[in-house]
């Protein structure tokens, strides 16, 4: 198991987890429409979610479009 800060909370993911696993873990829509992910503040393009492994101790942010002015 590895631990990442996922959207501000410590979160356990299986070893070998990828950004895609993190995205799913927060319950983002499957197709990822309107969703973006960053690891330690850097954008991870959707195309790399599956291939980008997490090593733990990272800050992962998964964001989506919401109502805003």
């Amino acid at each position, binding site marked *: 198991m590895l631990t990442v800060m996922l*959207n*501000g909370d410590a979160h356990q993911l299986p070893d070998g987890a990828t950004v895609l696993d993190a995205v799913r873990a*927060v*319950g*983002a*829509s499957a197709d990822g*429409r*309107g*969703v*973006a*992910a*960053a690891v330690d*503040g850097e*954008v991870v*393009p*959707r195309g790399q979610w599956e291939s980008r492994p997490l090593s733990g101790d990272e800050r992962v*942010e*998964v*964001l*989506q*479009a*919401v*109502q*805003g*002015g």
Partner: protein
Amino acid sequence: MSALEIAGRSFESRLIIGTGGFRSLDAMRAAVQASGADVATVALRRVDPTARGSILELLDDCGCFVVPNTAGCFTARDAVATARLAREALETDWVKLEVIGDDKTLLPDPGELLDAAEQLVGDGFTVLPYTNDDPVLARRLEDAGCAAVMPLGSPIGSGMGIANPYNLRLIVEAARVPVILDAGIGTASDAALAMEAGCDAVLLASAVSRAEDPAVMATAMRKAVEAGYAARRAGRIPRRLYGEPSSPVEGVAELT
């Protein structure tokens, strides 16, 4: 009403709607449709699994072009990072750039805003900066390559209208990019005033979303923007200190 051109893109409506503050998605849908807006802004926030409904589908249904904002950012660094995530999430390089300098007034931070604008323009973004009403800062943002300048009328959500019409006039006179009045609109006459002052468009959220009846206020805003735009082009009469008869002064009968 001729089309609004921003960064080579053409829009029919000169009213841009911010989607924040609606009580429900249904209320938003009714208001966005009534507004006639074809541009809408959204924010980016952490995924909330409990949230229901998709704002993007709703805005697609309404035929709105979606522009993400960087609301909530207090530094150029945060705003730039947020803009990059927004580009990835929404597959657009347009961004409404907000860099707030004070969380009580929500007024922008001039230095951080200009810094972020320069970085994002360099990074290929189409940048629409929310700025204060300082004509010098507006010029610097334009020189930095922003696609429009979006001065406030008064603080976000304050409903105070256009606090300093004089500065707005100076900004409009000097601008070579579209000027979009952003923030402070409270009611229809505020929007009409902004257009009469020469703004190319009006962006508002709370004035509609937090009105008692958002859809009716959206209709009011649509008509007010069209009215102000037409009045600007119609060439208003000058202001006079004294009266000027509208009925003929000749041919008055002598009845007594």
